């Protein structure tokens, strides 16, 4: 297999694998930048996958080929509402945010499977008929080499993820909203004395993380799993959380980390056709993404500073 062929067989899959992680990790970035730890990303993805699939199954006739897009929007909205639970606990009830995130994970899975059993009478839904499909990007896919690697057989949702990462960066670093959101995560009292409502910002951030986690989960479900069961989302949310930290709480960093995971995963699966890797026992390839991440963190990424007020409930009037 030539090098270009190799890239062509690794990069598009890496992109589709990364996209759900990117969406969700961006959600994590918003939430944690505002000072709310979000261990519940996994649960938000579960909720997104559940809603995405159920909606898709229910409305495939109505929306036709647009169904997957409408489904992920529905998933984003419902997950955003679902994330309110975390927001209420973490912001208003001064809950330990880690605890409440864990509760989100349990709740989403329990609720998802419970409702699936109620509505479908079985533990998993049928497969959707309207999934996302890959396509060639017009014009761009004609570019020699680059086009083949990056623009042929690509999910639009993958590009949506990358675009959203850039948008998130712009919002967080260039707009008043972003400045305020970050200030709330660093020094809520300072923000408060500047007339910024800490609670409001944190609510918005958590809800955003719900919407993005919902997007991530539903995109995963509608590109890869195609149905919903207890095993649809297994650890992708935790990987997204890892991407948030790996990416140092920066939207582009988180995207980079998610792409790295996707690349490593893709490489480990596709290695069968790569001469050097052919003879490596499969287990080494399976654990490679995880071990590489640890090595990268230990070696050159090093200390990552979390937003200073991350995890601390803000109580007006204390010092």
């Amino acid at each position: 297999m030539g090098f270009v062929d190799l890239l062509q067989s690794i990069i598009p899959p890496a992109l589709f694998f990364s996209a759900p992680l990117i969406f969700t990790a961006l959600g994590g970035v918003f939430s944690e930048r505002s000072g709310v730890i979000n261990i519940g990303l996994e649960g938000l993805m579960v909720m997104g996958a559940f809603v995405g699939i159920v909606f898709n199954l229910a409305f495939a006739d109505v929306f036709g080929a647009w169904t997957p897009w409408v489904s992920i929007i529905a998933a984003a909205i419902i997950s955003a509402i679902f994330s309110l639970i975390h927001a209420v606990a973490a912001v208003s009830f001064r809950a330990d945010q880690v605890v409440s995130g864990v509760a989100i994970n349990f709740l989403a899975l329990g609720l998802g499977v419970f409702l699936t059993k109620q509505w479908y009478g079985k533990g998993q839904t049928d497969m959707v008929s309207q999934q996302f499909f890959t396509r060639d990007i017009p014009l761009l896919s004609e570019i020699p080499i680059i086009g083949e690697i990056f623009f042929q057989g690509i999910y639009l949702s993958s590009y949506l993820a990358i675009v959203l990462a850039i948008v998130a960066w712009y919002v967080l670093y260039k707009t008043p909203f972003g400045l305020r959101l970050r200030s709330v995560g660093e020094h809520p009292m300072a923000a408060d004395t500047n007339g910024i409502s800490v609670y409001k910002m944190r609510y918005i951030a958590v809800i955003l993380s719900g919407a993005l986690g919902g997007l991530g989960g539903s995109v995963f479900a509608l590109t890869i799993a195609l149905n919903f069961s207890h095993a649809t989302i297994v650890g992708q949310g935790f990987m997204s959380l890892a991407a948030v930290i790996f990416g140092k709480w920066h939207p582009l960093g988180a995207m980079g980390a998610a792409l790295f995971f996707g690349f490593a995963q893709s490489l480990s699966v596709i290695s069968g056709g790569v001469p050097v890797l052919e003879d490596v026992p499969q287990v080494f390839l399976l654990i490679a993404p995880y071990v590489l991440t640890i090595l990268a963190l230990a070696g050159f990424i090093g200390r990552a500073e979390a937003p200073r007020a991350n995890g601390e409930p803000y109580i007006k009037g204390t010092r």
Partner: protein
Amino acid sequence: MDYVVEMLDIRKEFPGVVANDNITLQLKKGEIHALLGENGAGKSTLMNVLFGLYQPEKGEIRVNGKPVKITDPNIANELGIGMVHQHFMLVEPFTVTQNIILGSEPTRYGKINIRKAEREVQELSDRYGLRVDATAKISDISVGMQQRVEILKTLYRGAEVLIFDEPTAVLTPQEIVELMDIMRSLTAEGKSIILITHKLKEIMQIAERCTVIRKGEGIDTLDVAETSVTELASLMVGRNVSFKVEKEPAVPKETVLKIENLNVKDKRKVEMVKGMNLEVRAGEILGVAGVDGNGQSELIEAITGLQKSDAGKILLNDKDITNFSPRKVTESGVGHIPQDRHKYGLVLDYSVGENMVLQTYYKKPYSKYKTLNYNEIYKKAAELIEEYDVRTPSVYTSASSLSGGNQQKAIIGREVDRSPDLLIAAQPTRGLDVGAIEFIHNKLIEERDKGRAVLLISFELDEVLDLSDRIAVMFDGQNVAEVKPEETDENELGLLMAGSTKEKAGDQG
């Protein structure tokens, strides 16, 4: 009425405490009005009420004669009230400009117009002579500049009334002088200022009027020109306070601490201590005077083992303790009252009792076979809080609920009680009221008289001059001069601290 702000009969309660009880404060346009009171008297609370962070249970606030309800800081801002908080309200990873515009950002097409903001901030800074670098990161600038940023924040929002809560506690003498100038230029522009400070001299220097509160109650409002430091002090504490530290001449004995050609880098790998030499002897207090940032912190960290030194030697009782671990340094006989009591001095979530054995918990009688003996620990703690007058409901109370002064007393009790050969006291009275300061000063002198070596580091020249038997001036990481307190004055010290040589300073002084 020519009052810009009137707070009438304000009452504010916290669960179990009446922080403000019928306090009245009236601020005239263009005046600097001091607010004086012991720790915990209710000053910050009163100002937080004015700034909209707390809602009073009772009372009325008027701005320019009109009654107002200030329910959150936004409203205070709109009414032209700005506050420079006791603990700075700055977002460290942000730049100066970002901090200033936060909450009222100038935008273009939804994007922050950062260029324009920087220009405005710089102009504003220049206008009031605040010398602030609009593009610098907060974490990279000095405490003094941080405070000027806080002032800019209020000015940027068009504040006409500025509240300063203990602004000088964290400043060096030079910075205090600058701040006074800034305040004067602000009032010259027609702005009014409420100033909270524990330093009576400052009030005498700059304020026109002064309101004194004690234990939550308003005592009196006086014209500063018609009062004296002693009167203010006794009004505030409710008894007479002696300001002059009473002490016998020192009887220095053998050398306890000897520092030779010490070099230390700070966390950012910048050399902060460069060939430092110093000697402290038993039975004396050596004061280190110097402007903040000249290597004092790194010097202490090196002695106490918190930071590695690159070159040179630290000898304690002739034993080389260079680069010992903190534990070994402590065991060799060093006590340390740290500069930042919240960061280093205490584990705030531990009880007062547990904090009392922070360095000795592993020793008999507090533990045996690595097992703690809480009876002994709390017994000891009870003794200490008694002896050092730490006001706490019990030894089981968590340290976080003590006031700053009492936290400091607890630390001092703990450090002194171990009877270390060398006691390092870094800013031991920062932010404390005169009563607590008096107590701590006496304790330090008592230790000296017991034959301990005391190394005092303070940015307050008064304190250094009053307490020290000898003064070393630290500048740019070196010991540039040693003087006797009775042979020098603030003026000469100030010049030395700014880098003049002894001869020159002596000539001028």
